[in-house]
């Protein structure tokens, strides 16, 4: 059985090996970019059906950001929305026969978790300056500084392992059942896998919001800020 922890290169682009996950990621990126351009090319105040449907998506992302972070969503909409849509499409790309979701490989998830790690620093510095961002590490009391430093690394790691583990275990389980039983047996498992994929995309976006909200609001006393602390 092929190990789920390794990835096999499909072809080589110069010295860089290109795996199947990278090709699928490129395809999803192309779909997102072309789709985004095509939809926003002719925007009108009286929306067509397609425009109304996609406005609903943007509106949902906005309201989630407003509920979770208690801030105006405009600066965070692009990052959070792209994260959610990309992971959602990546998890559901398993619907196409022969395609493995790129999030079932460690590298894609590591890249996404690294993006969140850098975005927390970026938004934190933009909200409170370098001093204000560093002050969030001493937020309840200065004794917590080493723990907060460790937490900021370990929570990115747990973000990576959570997405990888959930998506990979679904793919792995379907592979095992497919090798044991016949054609139609894994269909309920695939349906469960789609549900898990959607929930994990949502969870990833929510956790990115919670981390960013922690970095931008720890300095200011704000009684309405949700105080969701996360385990490492």
């Amino acid at each position, binding site marked *: 059985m092929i*190990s*789920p*922890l*390794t990835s096999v290169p499909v072809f080589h682009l110069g010295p860089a090996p290109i795996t199947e996950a990278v090709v699928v990621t490129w395809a999803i990126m192309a779909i997102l970019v072309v789709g985004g351009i095509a939809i926003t090319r002719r925007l009108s105040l009286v929306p067509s059906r397609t425009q109304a449907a996609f406005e609903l998506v943007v509106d949902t992302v906005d309201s*989630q950001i407003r*509920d*979770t972070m208690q801030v105006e969503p405009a600066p965070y909409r692009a990052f959070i929305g792209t994260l959610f849509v990309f992971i959602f499409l990546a998890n559901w790309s398993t619907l196409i026969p022969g395609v493995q979701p790129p999030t079932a490989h460690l590298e894609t998830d590591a890249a996404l978790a690294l993006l969140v790690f850098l975005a927390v620093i970026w938004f934190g510095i933009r909200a409170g300056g370098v001093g204000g961002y560093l002050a969030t590490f001493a937020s309840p009391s200065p004794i917590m500084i080493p723990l907060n430093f460790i937490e900021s690394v370990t929570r990115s790691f*747990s973000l990576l*392992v*959570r997405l*990888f*583990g*959930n998506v990979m*275990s679904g793919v*792995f389980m379907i592979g095992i059942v497919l090798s044991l039983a016949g054609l139609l047996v894994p269909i309920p498992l695939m349906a469960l896998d789609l549900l898990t994929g959607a*929930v*994990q995309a*949502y*969870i990833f976006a*929510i*956790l990115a919001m*919670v981390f960013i909200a922690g970095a931008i609001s720890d300095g200011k006393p704000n009684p309405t800020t949700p105080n*969701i602390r*996360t*385990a490492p």
Partner: protein
Amino acid sequence: MNWLALVSIISAAIAVSFGAIGPALAEGRAVAAAMDAIARQPESAATISRTLFVGLAMIETMAIYCLVIALLLLFANPLLK
């Protein structure tokens, strides 16, 4: 098959089985508490279920960690190379 491979397989099974017990109990408690809260205050169901989803993902991660450890033991065991 040497005894190292045997021990790896058995400990992978132990890791998954014991790693499933704790999160299962914890998720049951969390969902029960959320149901209770929604029954008392149906108007705050949206907030409760959002927090519940995030919490369930946190709890579930513990089981996923055990699964990853088991897969490491089975597929990427450094001692078996």
